[in-house]
Each structure stands twice: as structure tokens, then as C-alpha cells.
């Protein structure tokens, strides 16, 4: 049960981050040339893979209770950020993430940046693609490592993330446009709930608490977080209808 949830969480989290990375890579490739953009992507992927290869085995060597206490708490704090932003978006207090608008902005900025003649690799295009993939990928690496290490299934979490990367990259190559039809905001909400739930479960277990029903109670924690989040969205919507949403989504 938890293996399936772990795979699905890593997959959805990775997919949503890769959709964002794809938007940046497309802007870099179209405006500054594909050689520079793809070199930047390759360099970032190597850096991210090195981080997983180095940190994964190191974390796996830590005793499980201590690992779950530390990593579960970090995951919980990290997940609360996601959930808080998702609730603010769903209730209209924060602008909805819009890939088309972000793509247009990135493309305009990349086209306005001065070109450096005589170079095979355009530094701006390389850096834009490298930073985009690295920063979005870091969140995926954090999730893969924390989920994988705490569940003692780094390979499965990495597989979920890799499947999402392949899927998003494949669709991106096919459509050559930002994947604005992907229900990104709903996916971010789901990831926020999963991160918070897994973090709560593992942090409590690491602190010495015993869950009734053992692993099965994770479903109860997820249900509890879903219901609470839905209630908080409803409360904020009721109390904040007059307030206009923020102008731009980060």
C-alpha cells in the first residue's frame, strides 16, 4: 500500500516540477538555440543524478527511527509550504500558476538579452536551461531522497520520478509548447497533501509514537489532511471573496 503511494507521490511531484522546467527549457531553446538549452539540461541532470547518488546511500545508512524523525520533520515543514500555497491558490488569495504566461515572460526576457557572437554555446541559453532544470529538479531530488530514505525504497521513489521525467519530456518534444493543459494547481495540491501526510506519519513514528494499525493509518492521515485542507479552502473562500487574487504567480 505505502509502496504504491510512495511511487505515485514521487511521480506526481516530479511531473509537476518537470512541467515547470519544460516551460523554461522551451523558452531557452526557441529563443537562444537548442544546442545551448539542451547542453544546460544535460549538465543539470548530471548534477541532480550526482546528488541522488551521493545522498541516497548516505541517508540509507542512518538508523530508521533517527532518519524518520529528522527527515520526516523536514518533509513535514517542506510539505506545509506546498499545502499552504495550494490552499491560498484554491481560495483565490494567490494567483493560479499559469504556464502560458510564464512561458511568454521567459521568452521575452531571453529574446531581449544580448547575444554573444562566435560562441557555439550561448551562455544565456545554457544558464537559463541549467538553472531552470536544476532548481525545479532540486525539489524532486529532495522528495525522492526523503521519501525513498524514510520508506527504505529510494529505487522506487527514483523510478516514479524518472517515469514522470520521461513522460513530460516525451510530451514536450511531441507538442513543443508549454503544457498549460496539465492540471498543475490540482497536482500541486495533491503533492502538498502527500508530503504533509508522509511527513506527519514518519516524524511521529521517528519520535516514538505508535500508529494504530501501523502503515494502514497513513491512509487515515491522508484523509484527515484532505478534509482539513478542503475545510480551510471553504473557510477562506467564504471570508475572502472580496479580496482580489495576487497579480503574479511565482
Amino acid at each position, binding site marked *: 500500500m505505502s509502496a504504491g503511494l510512495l511511487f505515485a507521490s514521487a511521480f506526481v511531484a516530479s511531473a509537476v516540477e518537470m512541467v515547470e522546467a519544460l516551460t523554461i527549457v522551451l523558452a531557452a531553446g526557441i529563443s537562444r538555440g537548442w544546442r545551448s538549452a539542451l547542453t544546460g539540461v544535460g549538465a543539470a541532470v548530471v548534477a541532480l543524478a550526482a546528488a541522488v547518488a551521493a545522498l541516497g546511500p548516505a541517508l540509507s545508512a542512518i538508523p530508521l527511527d533517527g532518519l524518520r*524523525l529528522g527527515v520526516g*520533520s523536514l518533509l513535514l*515543514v*517542506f510539505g506545509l509550504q506546498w499545502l*499552504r500555497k495550494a490552499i491560498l491558490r484554491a481560495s483565490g488569495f494567490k494567483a493560479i500558476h499559469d504556464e502560458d504566461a510564464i512561458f511568454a515572460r521567459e521568452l521575452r526576457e531571453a529574446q531581449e538579452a544580448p547575444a554573444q557572437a562566435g560562441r557555439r554555446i550561448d551562455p544565456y541559453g545554457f544558464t537559463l536551461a541549467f538553472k531552470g532544470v536544476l532548481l525545479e529538479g532540486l525539489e524532486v531530488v529532495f522528495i525522492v531522497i526523503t521519501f525513498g530514505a524514510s520508506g527504505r525504497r529510494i529505487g522506487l521513489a527514483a523510478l516514479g520520478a524518472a517515469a514522470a521525467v520521461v513522460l513530460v519530456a516525451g510530451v514536450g518534444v511531441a507538442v513543443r509548447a508549454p503544457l498549460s493543459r496539465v492540471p498543475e494547481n490540482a497536482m500541486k495540491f495533491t503533492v502538498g497533501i502527500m508530503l504533509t501526510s508522509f511527513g506527519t506519519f514518519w*516524524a*511521529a513514528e521517528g519520535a516514538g*509514537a*505508535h500508529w494504530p494499525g501501523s502503515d494502514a493509518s497513513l491512509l487515515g492521515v491522508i484523509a484527515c489532511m484532505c478534509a482539513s485542507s478542503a475545510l480551510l479552502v471553504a473557510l477562506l473562500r467564504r471570508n*475572502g471573496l472580496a479580496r482580489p487574487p495576487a497579480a503574479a504567480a511565482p
Partner: protein
Amino acid sequence: MIARRIRAFAHFWWDFVVGDDWRSGAQIALAVAATAALAAADVVAWWLLPLAVIAVLYASLLRATRG
């Protein structure tokens, strides 16, 4: 120069994990510590963290929407 880079590195990771609401991080740390204290005293403790998480989330949303 090195100190500035270390500060920037630490700031990046702080922002990455904790974000702009450090109070939530501190409250979660307290809740985990309280769970550990209850468990160490052989008191049933699993219920504390989910309740604390919901309370921390509610407080964080209030700060975000009122601030």
C-alpha cells in the same frame, strides 16, 4: 568572500525547506518534541502531530491572508 557564500548557501536551503513562514517550522519542531516527550512517558502520542499540523497550517494561513 567565503563567509558570504556560506551565508548565501545556508539562506538558499533555509528558504528552500522552511520558506517565508519560519513560525510554522518552529511550531512543527515543538510539536514533534512534544510527541517524543509523550511517547517517552509511555502515553499514546500518535494523535498529537496531525492535530498540531492542522493548527499550524490554520495559523499560517491566517497570517498570510491578514498580513
